[in-house]
């Protein structure tokens, strides 16, 4: 909509004006004061809800479409204004005898009333109306093509019919919902976030917001979604390859820093599962961006043999408060206090169980045995992995005073394997290392190829292993991006 098409700001009547609604006890309380002020000082009343409140008289005007309230920034009722040239020059909110007398210059107001009462929220800032009013009166800054759904079309079915869904219902991205979503970021809707594979299309903040609405995100989740899109669409992460590969991996997102708690993310019980809105929708929003903006759809560029739940959406937070170690983000060079999202090309989590180890050495050795099987026990340094240590397993290390660095060193030593046992043809298995590796000690993971995170509930002597995908320039490197408001 062009700005010239916008409804213009209506002027308030000059003189004293009070904006009120019947559904406000303070407005009811001051009703006699309003009549008094009309009689003694020519007050005009603007009523938001009941056109007959406080009376049917001609000095009461109904703000039918809330245009006056919206344009004149009324956020509380009653608001008393002194208007000149159609705009409020002085104002006071709620009921305060002193302030009302000072603003009006009329003494002896509200005999018998308390000195002071707070007001109520204006209808124009009521969440039920605010976004629609903003769309109607401020003009849309949104550039996406408008798609009209027929009256007889079920809007949920319409989303599916147009190929916009991952198979689950999506929230119809109406203009007011997208406008509300965009309030979650300070970025301009037209700002380019990333070039999205596989179609390599530039994706704006607005398009991310549209897909975040569809995924079920709340506005406060949007900065994390934007960070996730930035991380996944880097050349290092290689979203094109992650999508196109027959291997069944998807972007696994780990959120670090204060943002995780602020938006209510789950890093505890069932952190890798369902039931938390932020965890469930942020990863899904990224996948919808890849699908809808990038054109990455199963059976087209997406050729996964099995697929995995990570391809629907896989996002969780690290339990930093309960961890004696530095966080994943800190281990990757970020400052504590910085909120980040890390994208890792991973498969579904696999449970590692150890209910017997009491020493860190025993647990570490057992973990190494399990990690050795990542993707294939005979694949060395070719893939990365993410290890999610539960609080009960972490306690073994905390009790023994092991730091993250100590753990990584000890685990790396346990993950050195005798290549002779893993050579192609060894024990009758065709797959394996080339003959030139004979006699060597080979590490399972490349340096930095094992990402360790702390999450999960306080009960359960398990950890989770999330296997990766070929790493390096031919595959995918984990990428961490800052989350910016």
């Amino acid at each position, binding site marked *: 909509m062009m700005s010239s098409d916008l409804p213009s700001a209506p002027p308030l009547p000059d003189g004293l004006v009070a904006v009120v609604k019947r559904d406000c006890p303070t407005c009811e309380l001051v009703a006699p004061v309003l009549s008094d002020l009309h009689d003694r000082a020519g007050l005009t009343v603007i009523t938001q809800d009941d056109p007959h409140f406080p009376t049917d008289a001609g000095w009461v005007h109904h703000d039918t479409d809330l245009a006056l309230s919206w344009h004149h920034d009324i956020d509380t009722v009653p608001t008393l204004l002194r208007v000149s040239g159609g705009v409020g020059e002085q104002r006071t909110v709620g009921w305060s005898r002193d302030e009302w007398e000072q603003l009006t210059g009329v003494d002896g107001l509200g005999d018998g009333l308390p000195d002071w009462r707070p007001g109520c929220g204006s209808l124009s800032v009521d969440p039920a109306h605010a976004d629609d009013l903003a769309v109607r009166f401020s003009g849309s800054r*949104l550039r*996406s*093509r*408008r*798609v*009209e*759904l*027929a*009256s007889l079309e079920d*809007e949920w079915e319409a*989303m599916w019919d147009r190929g*916009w869904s991952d198979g689950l219902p999506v929230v*119809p*991205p*109406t*203009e007011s919902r*997208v406008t509300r979503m965009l309030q979650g970021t300070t970025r301009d809707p037209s700002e380019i976030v990333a070039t*999205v594979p*596989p*179609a*390599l*299309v530039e*994706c704006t903040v*607005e*398009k991310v917001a*549209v*897909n975040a609405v*569809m995924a079920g995100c709340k506005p406060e989740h949007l900065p994390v979604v934007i960070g996730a899109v930035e991380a996944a669409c880097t050349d290092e992460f*290689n979203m*094109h*390859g992650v999508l*196109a*590969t*027959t291997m069944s991996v998807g972007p696994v997102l780990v959120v670090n820093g204060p943002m995780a708690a602020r938006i209510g993310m789950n890093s505890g019980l069932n952190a890798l599962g369902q039931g938390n809105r932020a965890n469930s929708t942020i990863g899904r929003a990224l996948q*919808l961006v890849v699908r*809808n*903006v*990038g*054109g990455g759809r199963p059976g087209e560029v997406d*050729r996964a043999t099995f697929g995995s739940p990570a391809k629907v959406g896989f996002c969780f937070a690290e339990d930093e408060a309960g961890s004696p170690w530095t966080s994943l983000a800190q281990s990757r060079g970020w400052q504590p206090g910085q909120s980040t999202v890390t994208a890792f090309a991973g498969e579904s989590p696999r449970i590692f169980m150890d209910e017997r180890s009491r020493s860190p050495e025993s647990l570490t050795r057992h973990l190494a045995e399990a990690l050795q099987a990542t993707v294939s026990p005979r694949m060395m340094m070719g893939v990365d992995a993410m290890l999610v240590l539960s609080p009960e397993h972490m306690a073994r290390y905390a009790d023994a005073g092991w730091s993250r660095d100590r753990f990584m060193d000890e685990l790396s030593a346990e993950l050195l394997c005798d290549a002779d046992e893993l050579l192609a043809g060894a024990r009758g298995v065709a797959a394996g290392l080339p003959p030139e590796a004979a006699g060597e000690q080979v590490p399972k993971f490349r340096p930095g190829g094992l990402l360790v995170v702390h999450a999960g509930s306080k009960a359960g002597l398990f950890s989770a292993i999330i296997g990766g995908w*070929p790493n390096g*320039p*031919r*595959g995918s490197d984990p990428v961490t991006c800052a989350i910016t408001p």
Partner: protein
Amino acid sequence: MTTVLDPTSEQAPAARQRATRPESLAGLTVGLLDISKPRGNVFLDHVSERLTGLGATVNRYTKPAFTKPAPVDLRHEIATECAAVIEALAD
């Protein structure tokens, strides 16, 4: 009636005219694009042999990594040097 915002790139692929399908491959240059998957060259060697038998000249190309799209320069090179190209992804 509900109006929603289009979540897609709104960039329907620009319609591109395909070259006319040749009657015969005899005398034509055919490009074979190796996507760099292990042993893809073995398969393409056989294809090359068959094409040569049909009277075609075969040019071989290789893209750097099978997980990433062929660089635009390579695509341009193939388009200018060949009358037809065979590109396939297989495991």
